[in-house]
């Protein structure tokens, strides 16, 4: 009985701890301070309670030219835009040049093989390639941001070449 009473108290304390976590539902993400659950003074040697922060993403992809694909695929270990994607790039360039207030984020991606940080750098090479292709067509530099998701956001699950080929890509996202 004592044990279960103890557990009930423990659960209540745990829930109270959770409630103090920070919720970040706004965009852009802002930082708000959570109250420390219990301040740990230096040298106390005790274990610290870890409050949870919640991060939410609500940025939706919107805008862009109608009926034009937004994904450029790349060959294995390649970071050059293939000729078959030139018309797609041109359509996005025309759309962006029509209105200098339009902004686009190019999101580079890799397949799942290799380290997370190194793949982030490889995905960046793909997004930079698309950014440069758009720039060459006259899109202003300040309308484009090239970023990378590395291997973190695969379009297809699976560890075979067909999945990998779908994941080696750069997505053109309007914000």
């Amino acid at each position: 009985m004592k044990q279960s009473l103890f557990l009930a108290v423990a659960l209540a304390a745990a829930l109270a701890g959770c409630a103090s976590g920070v919720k970040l539902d706004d965009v852009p993400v802002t930082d708000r301070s959570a109250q420390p659950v219990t301040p740990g003074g230096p040298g106390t040697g005790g274990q610290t309670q870890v409050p949870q922060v919640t991060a939410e993403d609500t940025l939706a992809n919107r805008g862009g030219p109608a009926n034009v694909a937004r994904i450029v695929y790349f060959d294995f270990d390649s970071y050059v835009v293939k000729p078959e994607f030139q018309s797609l790039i041109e359509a996005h360039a025309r759309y962006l040049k029509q209105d200098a207030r339009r902004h686009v984020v190019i999101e580079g991606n890799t397949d799942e093989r290799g380290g997370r940080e190194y793949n982030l750098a490889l995905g960046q090479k793909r997004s930079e390639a698309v950014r440069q292709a758009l720039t060459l067509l006259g899109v202003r530099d300040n309308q484009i941001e090239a970023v990378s998701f590395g291997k973190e956001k695969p379009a297809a699950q699976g560890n075979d070449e067909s999945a990998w080929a779908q994941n080696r890509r750069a997505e053109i996202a309007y914000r």
Partner: protein
Amino acid sequence: MHDMRQWRRRELVGLLGAAAAVPAWAQFRVEVTGVGLTQLPIAVVPFRGDADAPQKIGAIVQADLERSGQFRAIDPSGAPGLDESSRPDLSPWRQKTADSLAVGSATRLADGRYDVRFRLWDVVKGQSLLADGFVVVAADLRLAAHRIADMIYEKLTGDKGVFSTRIAYVTKAGPRYNLWVADADGENAQSALASSEPIISPAWSPNGKQLAYVSFESRKPVVYVHDVAAGTRRLIANFRGSNSAPGWSPDGRTLAVTLTRDGGSQLYTIAATGGEAKRLTQSSGIDTEPLYTADGRSIYFVSDRGGAPQIYRMTAGGGDAQRVTFTGNYNISPALSPDGRWLAYISRISGAFKLQVMELATGNVQSLTDTTADESPSFAPNGRLIIYATRQPNGAEALMTTTLDGKIKARLPGKGGDIREPDWGPFQR
């Protein structure tokens, strides 16, 4: 009669009691593979009171010691009622070939806290080697057990134990990502950050109070520094392009990061409190994964400047880089032992990604695993173990620890889902 020492009582101050005491995931999954040649045989008897306490102290101590690779557990059965005040008959333990015997008790006090005491016996000499105790809240019973394991480890090996340190890791369960702070055995995990977007590259600050990491919550990688105890964080690097790979300087004042604001992925430094970024490298290719040496004077990093990713070293202010890895054409994710003697990294070998360790003085390299998707090595603060992520043969992601000779490995339990990106925190005061 027996060597009755003064009990030194230390209060492990337990902050908020009980939240972590629900032992839903407190199962022991130490899966030691391989055998070390010089393992110390020790019997850890279940502590008196373990059956009624929310944590089994004896089992935690034994699992800690086993995972270190330096101890071999001797069956502790057949010793009911032994505790730190007993004068045990040591001859049965000698017959079981134990060199050491740990006994103790966990007693619930009227105020709900626990009085935890233990004694370590030298079975061969028949001497008490160590006796100590703590009074802790229930939530800190695991910490008390880890501290006891640390004391036993230090007494018998001469090295500082790392069982009471903390690790950080990331899980992905469905669409949810969590950054966890857990005990060094992977248990007692508490979520520091929950997100619907990926989290990678957590890195403990040198004082163990903050975590730097890369979060994709704003649809691009940016670097945060997060105060773990307070639950507050600060956006440190959110420049145009991608921001990633935070590495702390040993004084905790500076972060080396990878930014793409000037085009490709290049290394920069930035104050740990935020501010302007100063460019460190000027290459036309990829420079990433910066890692300060313990003296703060050099930075190891990964670069493809020679045509394929290799690990290089340069002075911390930038400048000429010397190549460090020469075997193979894909070497990434450097980690340094605290004494600077060993470099752990991941090498692609015949399409498999394998944890390697190089003795820097000689350049000798040893492969430590038989898995094929190893990632993110990080040294324990005493330099005796490496934690890393890998994919098990059944496809599930796992966190493993290994000794530097690769002989003793243990799989750490984690929260549900895929588990990755471990970083081992520093010694804690």
